[in-house]
């Protein structure tokens, strides 16, 4: 049920990836996303998947656990893959009525699917290995320069941190409300779409109310401890780079360099 959302949750384990500075992991995610969009060759994907696979291995997050997190996006993925198959012009393989499937369409759809899956796995690996608190710290520090442009970086970082922190709380709450309503004979799994949407009301309303109540309590608790956004808030655990972090930065730059260089090398050799 709802509690099975694994996407974006912290996965407690002791690994080198978990121990990295959150800024490195944010940077790594960014680099990974760039590499996905830069690359457009099959060989390139093999290289990217191999590197990513190694990182997952080192992170000690079970692969099955990560893949389960993909369940939620299956619908969007199928949808965009199918669209891609049909709308791409090119060498026609198969055609019926007004639809035609082209070779280019299939290739593009496959690339699209790989890209999307890697994109989601890549960003979720960051949240699996970084606690919401350190993620927020990392974001705040990495984007700190924007403060000079009057962007309220600290506020945004706090908001994101709170949002991430409350995902498990609310999903647990949703689970409890579902059970309570099921005990009253409610059925969330049967009926047509309209009936099911209507059937969600007994879940949505109590959940919203509890979210508001929690927000109010949290605001009060923050206030009671004199939380404010004074410029010079200090940290209990200030972020400090270690040697491993520096090494990770170097590896990341090497990785991005390889992906970009190989792209131009292939183009030059006329591969693509």
């Amino acid at each position, binding site marked *: 049920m709802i509690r099975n959302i694994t996407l974006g949750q912290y996965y*407690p384990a002791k690994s080198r990836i978990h121990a990295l500075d959150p800024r490195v992991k944010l940077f790594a995610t960014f680099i990974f996303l760039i590499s996905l969009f830069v690359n457009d060759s099959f060989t390139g994907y093999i290289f990217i998947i191999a590197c990513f696979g190694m990182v997952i291995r080192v992170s000690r997050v079970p692969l099955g*656990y990560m893949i389960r997190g993909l369940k939620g996006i299956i619908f969007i993925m199928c949808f965009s893959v199918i669209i891609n198959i049909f709308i791409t012009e090119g060498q026609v393989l198969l055609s019926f009525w007004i639809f035609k499937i082209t070779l280019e369409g299939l290739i593009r759809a496959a690339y699209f699917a790989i890209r999307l899956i890697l994109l989601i796995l890549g960003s979720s690996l960051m949240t699996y290995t970084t606690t919401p608190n350190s993620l927020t710290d990392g974001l705040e520090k990495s984007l700190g320069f924007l403060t000079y442009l009057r962007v309220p970086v600290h506020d945004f970082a706090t908001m994101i941190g709170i949002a991430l922190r409350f995902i498990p709380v609310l999903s647990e709450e949703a689970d*409890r*409300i579902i*059970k*309570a*309503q*099921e*005990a*009253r*004979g*409610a*059925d969330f799994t049967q009926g047509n779409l309209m009936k099911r949407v209507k059937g969600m*009301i*007994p879940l949505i*309303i*109590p959940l919203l*109310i*509890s979210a508001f109540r929690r927000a109010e309590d949290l605001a009060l608790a923050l206030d009671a401890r004199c939380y404010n956004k004074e410029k010079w808030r200090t940290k209990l655990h200030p972020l400090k780079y270690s040697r491993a972090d520096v090494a990770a930065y170097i590896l990341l730059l090497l990785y991005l360099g390889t992906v970009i260089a190989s792209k131009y090398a292939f183009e030059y050799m006329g591969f693509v």
Partner: protein
Amino acid sequence: MKTIKLVLENVSYVYNPGTIYETVGITDADLSFESEKSYAVIGHTGSGKSTLLQLMNGLLSPAKGRVLLDGEDVHAKKYKIKKLRSSVGLVFQYPEYQLFEETVIKDVCFGPKNLGYTPEECLELAKEALRLVGIEEDKFDQNPFNLSGGQKRRVAIAGVLAMNPGILVLDEPAAGLDPEGKEQILSLLKTLRETKKMGIVMVSHNMDDASGADEVIVLDKGSIALKGSAREVFKEYERLAGLGLDVPFAMRMTRLLRSRGIDLPDCFDNEELSKALLKIYKR
């Protein structure tokens, strides 16, 4: 009110089997519950109380063992789970958080409506349930969110009572209420049992509340540590203390007084204790 019998036969349940989050819910529980009787389930946090309650209502299906309602296996393929839901009413902890309708009466109608009663029947059942829990007629058309905490709780309990269960299962029904609200809930449960012949199963952290039950079930780490009449169970003072549990006030007091050299017989509740003390005082 229907007279029913619910049997848990060698039931086990494990959360998240095969992952790092694997935890034991319940191990080899053999229990039987009947209408007209009252049961108290006690145990430390995480001892499996909530799991047990959810198994009784079919919200969880056992990994091992069977749950039988009047001899029928409720997890058999052909069994209609709504039959169990209408026979064994489950009231969760803080049930007021499940209220969602615009009016009190509509909210209480939700359960019977799901069971397929006609709108007129629903209304009748809802009114009856609300009367039972002591909500006055002028509140029926009010927004449930405007009621007091104790009233909200009673409306939520009415929501389950309106389904006419033969056994009512409650997870800490008095938690978080003021003494008056608590008293109202406990006397409601007593009425339900005496006049409606309903079976009551209650999880409680308060040993004085638990001592009123016909049978006390003590859980520890998912297993049944002790089971029997309240008198039998609470005699095991050392055993209970080892499980992080207490005994009712009167028994605790008796022990303390004895250790100070006052000669007292075994006293189970406040009445017995006061009688024994009066006797000594008069002597």
